């Protein structure tokens, strides 16, 4: 790839990466489910410096009508990066990259959702990247599958996602921004842990087949960890809810206003 500043050492003498991680270490991951009140389901993911929000609406009537399928639901996905999510302002609106990510994400999710339960409908998934630091498609897919489960959409399993790549001739897990920009390869993986299926696999850069196998193995193992965090987030949504509901109850004065 080249273009790296000559003094930038992506991996130091001790085998540590630029942010102090070991090659097989993931960035810290935090997931919260049910963060948006008006969406049917939602999730917020903080993955290192990535901040991603996902919202799910539906199943609902499919618009435009010509897209609807008489015997199954359509999973429509929109991946969008906020203009302030990167260092240089990103020109808002869909572009080639976000189209591609939207497409692969909806294909990955379609694979796990029981679409045949909801003929003629669409399930709309919106992924908003609030802050980007490499690996947003993985973070987006991870958030989207938690949001789908939170919306009560029947699905076979959650999709977990993580990337691996090659940096300074070493295979590493979950690339950060500098590693992504100046590294040699990047493989995002979407994985269905229970069935052991891969629903998303891309590769940017060149790898030997041994390197690829190693990277894929690393990413799949990481996906299993991501999966546990996802499950925990969904369970927490209901077990820790008791305390949070107090404030959510409408006050008597609000009610009066609404009734009058």
């Amino acid at each position, binding site marked *: 790839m080249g273009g790296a500043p000559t003094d930038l050492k992506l991996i130091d003498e001790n085998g540590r990466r630029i942010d102090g991680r070991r090659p097989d270490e993931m960035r810290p991951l935090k997931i919260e489910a049910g963060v948006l009140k008006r969406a049917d389901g939602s999730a917020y993911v903080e993955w290192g410096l990535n901040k991603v929000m996902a919202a799910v609406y*539906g199943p609902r*009537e499919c618009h435009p009508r010509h897209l609807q399928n008489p015997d199954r639901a359509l999973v429509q996905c929109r991946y969008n990066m906020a203009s302030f999510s990167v260092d240089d302002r990103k020109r808002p609106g869909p572009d080639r990259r976000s189209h591609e990510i939207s497409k692969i994400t909806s294909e990955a999710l379609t694979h796990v959702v029981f679409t045949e339960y909801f*003929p003629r409908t669409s399930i709309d998934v919106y992924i908003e990247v609030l802050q980007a630091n490499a690996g947003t498609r993985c973070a987006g897919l991870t958030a989207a599958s938690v949001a789908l489960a939170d919306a009560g959409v029947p699905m*076979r399993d959650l999709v977990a996602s993580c990337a691996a790549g090659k940096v300074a001739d070493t295979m590493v897990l979950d690339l950060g921004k500098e590693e992504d920009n100046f590294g040699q390869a990047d493989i995002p993986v979407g994985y269905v842990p229970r069935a052991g299926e891969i629903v998303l696999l891309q590769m940017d850069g060149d790898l030997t087949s041994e390197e690829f196998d190693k990277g894929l193995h690393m990413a799949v193992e990481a996906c299993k960890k991501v999966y546990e965090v996802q499950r925990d987030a969904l369970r927490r949504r209901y077990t820790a809810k008791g305390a949070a509901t107090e404030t*959510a*109850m*409408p006050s008597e004065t609000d009610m009066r206003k609404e009734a009058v």
Partner: protein
Amino acid sequence: MLTSDSKENTREIVVPGDLLAISSKKAGPGTYSQGGKIFASQLGIKTVRPDSISVVPLAGRYLPVTGDLVVGKIVDVGASNWLVDINSPYPSPLHVNEVPWRVEFGETRKFMQVGDIVLLKIVAVDELKRISVSMQDHGLRKLTGGMVIEVSPSKVPRVIGKNGSMIQMLKNETACRIYVGQNGRIWIDGELDNIVRAVQAIKMIEDEAHNLGLTEKVKEFLEKSSNKGA
């Protein structure tokens, strides 16, 4: 009703993909089976019964089922039908033949307008999820006055309670007229103070639907709030 809250004291929350059992039991709603194993397909509470295993969902859309009583809202008026929103992913047209009045062609607007609330029954749902609704049955009618609130359709069984115990208690304690649609819409009419109390109680049921001893708790709340008002 879907669950009996008295018998069960383990309320395990399951996530899609969780293994529920390896057995030959029937995979009930909210689950699916694969290779002799039963997995959860929805976020919900695991429920084990002698012959089947199911998951009572904690969220989800309303899917129309034949025979359901629903509270609908008129969203469009045609020459010979009304289009009713029943809070499901599918539109449901109400034909003039299915209402209790004799309606001449083009005079639909004289009977019901956009925004009116109606109590309906789902007569048929075919495999393409085309819905027929009717207003021609005992107790089905246009609902005037009152207010409509929405709860998650998955919580409707808890609002009604076992054999209607919860809703009966609500009606008695608040002296309100209440209709609970299976689609999660609830129509309430009565005195303003009582409506306020009923709505708060229903919100409480919705928030704590997965907890035990709910009826008692709600009753306590209602009694307390009526003393305060007096």
